[in-house]
């Protein structure tokens, strides 16, 4: 909001520089964001908080300044009391049909005005605060609004059918063309200022074009009213029409300021545009009762909440100068104050803490102490945070960069990406609308965000990428009306070369096993028991390079190579490996404590064996088969190498494994190992029909 320095000085006697005024206002909460010179004037750009509509005018700002500087306001804009037209006569000109939406309505007829340009001083004032001059009458109503905070509207009386005003709800589908030359359709919740036939203005928002002041206007009807705040807000939203007037009405204007504003404007019109003013019409069907705030000991309340020591007298002085008046019991000033009455312009003063804030800001927040609260118990992280941290750090050590993507994604991914097991069978969450085209789906999967990131990075010629994201995914609640289901998921993507720091070209390309290794390493770092990987079929992954991920027998997610279809959709020309699983499921499993195994005292003997196996053969089946044969001599099996190609049929692979034989009590002899090894090979031949290569 723009406030003119010179204009302020019309309203209050101050001897302060613009910079001093700016500092003072900021200190009490009227944040001056800038002071800009304008001719011989200075304009304050004030960022006003929404609870202070009373400061949306020069009078309001002057009032605050008056409290700060203990200066009094001038009487320049004060007007003498008016005797309104008796209600019976007034009713012939103005009728309020819907008093629930129009608390007070004043009108004045000014005859024989001469519409023309405004005098230079008026144009200058308006221009200083960024307002455009239209004509003398329109400028005066605008001027008085910026001076006293009260929006008003002038009608061409002769264009009002029947020469009168009816304040009523619009009829459904009633139409009006507003001053901005837009035809608008009203509904029966909206308040309209009508003539005998049709709406002439949308109450509190904008006047109609037809009844507006033109160069030919001779007789003016000046409306200064107060409308129900919530109704103005809802009408303004419905019509998507916000104006200086609606902005003020919906936040609340000063109900007791109407007559003063009307009189000020009338006097200015008569002075500047000529004309004779008629009697004041003042219909006030719905009086508003000022807020009364109970406060037994305001000084103590200030001390309790702010730590400030402000004596009762000083508290009273601040409040009184803000127009917040103490109500003495039995009108006896010697008795303790128990209640304070908020002035008609302060809709925001309702309870004792509101008074505390007034006293605190006028005492200066800088005078409040700076101390730590008394010591308290120990702080704590979220129970899962240490494991999250280990998990994250492990991925970072493995070369993954952490991504954060928007939680809303396009619905097109519903059909392409298979959600993790904890989301299977759940309805999805949809946004009523979005600010990013198409992105109305609250993500049930983190993969679309990471795939978009891959595409964006490919476009920047970054082809070796490792990204992960940890974040919430969403699905609908269990039952109608239940809050949505939220789970922490982890997704990672991996593609391109196995990058070394500072080297331009990778030594090799990553494959499925790199991605699997990353998942295993991160889980192990977080102390999760080893995950099991089994052959799977998942919609967005390529058949034959897809695995289920399970922990402690529970399926928690999937990993594998992105399907050709999806890759083609993104125009990816290199293999992309992805994994996604429910991180809560993974970390729900109790953290593993390492178990100490005594160090071997006697050397072990290993035997490497190669088998020719079919491509469907699973390495894991060897471990499963031999698990029951593990004993004090046969210690286990590990993977050595897999080979395919020359010398083998296309559907065959050569698999080399290592078997370890070792005892804890003595060294095994060669012949003992030969016998054990023969046994093991026989088990494998019997159970899996595989024979060592010769």
């Amino acid at each position, binding site marked *: 909001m723009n406030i003119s320095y010179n204009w302020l000085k019309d309203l209050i006697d101050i001897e302060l520089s613009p910079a001093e005024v700016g500092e003072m206002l900021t200190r009490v909460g009227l944040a001056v964001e800038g002071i800009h010179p304008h001719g011989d004037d200075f304009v304050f750009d004030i960022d006003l908080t929404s609870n202070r509509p009373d400061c949306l005018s020069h009078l309001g700002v002057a009032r605050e300044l008056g409290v700060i500087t203990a200066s009094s306001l001038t009487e320049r804009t004060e007007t003498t009391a008016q005797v309104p037209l008796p209600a019976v006569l007034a009713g012939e000109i103005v009728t309020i049909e819907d008093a629930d939406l129009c608390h007070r309505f004043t009108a004045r007829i000014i005859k024989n005005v001469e519409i023309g340009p405004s005098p230079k001083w008026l144009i200058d004032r308006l221009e200083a605060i960024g307002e455009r001059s239209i004509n003398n009458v329109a400028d005066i109503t605008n001027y008085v609004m910026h001076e006293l905070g009260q929006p008003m509207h002038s009608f061409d009386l002769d264009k009002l059918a029947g020469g009168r005003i009816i304040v009523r709800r619009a009829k459904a589908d009633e139409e009006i063309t507003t001053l901005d030359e837009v035809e608008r359709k009203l509904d029966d919740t909206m308040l309209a200022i009508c003539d005998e036939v049709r709406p002439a203005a949308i109450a509190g928002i904008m006047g109609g074009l037809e009844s507006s002041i033109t160069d030919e206007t001779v007789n003016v009807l000046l409306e200064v009213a107060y409308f129900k705040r919530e109704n103005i807000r809802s009408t303004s939203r419905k019509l998507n029409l916000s104006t200086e007037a609606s902005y003020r009405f919906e936040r609340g204007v000063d109900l007791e300021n109407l007559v003063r504003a009307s009189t000020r404007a009338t006097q200015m019109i008569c002075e500047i545009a000529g004309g004779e003013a008629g009697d004041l019409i003042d219909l006030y069907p719905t009086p508003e009762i000022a807020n009364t705030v109970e406060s037994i000991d305001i000084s103590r309340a200030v001390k309790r909440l702010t730590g400030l020591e402000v004596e009762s007298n000083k508290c009273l002085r601040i409040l009184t100068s803000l127009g917040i008046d103490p109500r003495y019991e039995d009108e006896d000033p010697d008795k303790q104050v128990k209640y304070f009455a908020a002035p008609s312009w302060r809709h925001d003063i309702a309870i004792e803490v509101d008074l505390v*804030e007034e006293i605190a800001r006028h005492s200066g927040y800088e005078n409040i102490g700076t101390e730590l609260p008394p010591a308290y118990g120990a702080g704590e992280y979220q129970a899962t945070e240490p494991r999250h941290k280990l998990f994250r750090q492990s991925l*970072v050590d493995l070369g993954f960069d952490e991504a*954060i993507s928007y*939680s809303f994604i396009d619905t097109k991914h519903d059909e392409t990406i298979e959600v993790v097991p904890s989301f299977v069978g759940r309805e999805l969450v949809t*946004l009523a609308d979005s600010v990013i085209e198409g992105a109305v789906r609250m993500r049930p999967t983190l993969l679309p965000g990471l795939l978009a990131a891959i595409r964006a990075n490919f476009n920047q010629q970054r082809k070796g990428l490792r990204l*992960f994201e940890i974040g919430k995914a969403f699905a609908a609640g269990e039952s109608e009306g239940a809050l949505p289901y939220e789970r922490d998921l982890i997704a990672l993507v991996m593609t391109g070369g196995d990058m070394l720091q500072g080297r331009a070209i990778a030594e090799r390309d990553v494959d499925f096993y790199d991605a699997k290794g990353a998942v295993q390493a991160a889980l192990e770092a977080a102390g999760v028991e080893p995950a099991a990987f089994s052959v799977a079929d998942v919609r967005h992954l390529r058949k034959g390079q897809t695995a289920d991920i399970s922990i402690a027998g529970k399926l928690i997610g999937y990993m594998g190579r992105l399907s050709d279809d999806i890759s083609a959709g993104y125009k990816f020309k290199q293999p992309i490996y992805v994994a996604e699983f429910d991180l809560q499921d993974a970390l729900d499993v109790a953290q593993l404590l390492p178990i100490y195994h005594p160090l071997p005292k006697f050397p072990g003997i290993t035997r490497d064996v190669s088998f020719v196996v079919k491509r469907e053969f699973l390495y894991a089946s060897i471990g499963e088969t031999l698990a029951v044969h593990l004993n004090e001599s046969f210690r286990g099996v590990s993977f050595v190498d897999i080979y395919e190609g020359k010398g083998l049929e296309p559907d065959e692979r050569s698999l080399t494994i290592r078997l370890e034989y070792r005892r804890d009590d003595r060294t095994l002899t060669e012949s003992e190992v030969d016998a054990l090894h023969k046994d093991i090979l026989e088990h494998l031949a019997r159970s899996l029909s595989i024979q060592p290569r010769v």
Partner: protein
Amino acid sequence: MSDERDKVEAVRTAFAEEFAGYANLSLDSSSLSDVESLLRGLGELKIKHTGKRSEIAATMKLIGRVSPEERGAFGQMVQSVEKEIVNSIETAESKLNRYISNAKIERDRLDVTLPGRRPRTGHLHLITILRQKIEDIFVSMGYSIENDREIETDYYNFDALNIPEGHPARESQDTFYTTDGFALRSQTSTVQIRAMERRGVPIRIIAPGKVFRRDTPDMTHVPMFHQIEGLCVDKGITMAHLKGTVTEWLQRLFGEDTVTRFRPSYFPFTEPSAEFDFSCFKCHGTGKFGSDRCRPCKGSGWIELGGSGMVHPNVLRAVGVDPSEYSGFAFGFGLERMCAMMYALDDIRLMFDNDVRFLEQFR
């Protein structure tokens, strides 16, 4: 005796002939393999001309044939010839070995300025880095970290926070709604309510998390961002404790000389309310960096960070806490905004583009 001398002379001559190629070796620009084959040849010579089976050793057996009075002189002669042979071979050998060793060192010379073999390590997101730093500070100050729902009911997002229906902050144009009528939380203050319902009072928590506002992405707006909310409720908590706490954590993050400034403001869930600023970490409040205008604070010396205030009595009542018995403060600020100022980012959307060239700049 002269016969025996002649034989010794003959051995010497024979050796000298065979050794001629090594006598005045010039190895300049010889290849390593040539020198290695020279060394092998020399090895053969050594075997032939030294040791028990060599010819010079055989001449020692002639000593018995020499008259006793000449034996001493003959022995000396044989020894001197043997010594001469051994010395010659050893000298040549060590010359060759030195040459070979130097050549090998040369051959194995590395460019030590090439990059080390080091897997590229990844990077935490800037938001995670800052969040963890701030969490660490608050945990050490006795605060617990709270984490909660991102999709909320209007009750938690608005009503319980003293934002009744019809309040401007409640306008749906700022808040995302699901088709079921739930709100994407528009501030982490929702966690104040959930945490107090769960833990009761007294309470000290901070709640980091994502929040959502219906802003179309541009250089200074994003529809999703991160906030950290702080809440402390106990008997006797005042605004001085708020100022002390905010100042303390900012000093721990940005240095002891950091000062804070509180300005009156308005938030529905606090009363009195204040916005807080801190002296710029870069220019230390001077507004100037060298002779240039300081970038993070735009020359003002202050960085506007967040909102705060004393918890509104209606908020305490909403969770069944008696505001005449307990009081508390709350504060909140945006992490993206803070990052943008700390790193002078001119486009806040970079935070969610996941461009690796951006991500890898932070650790």
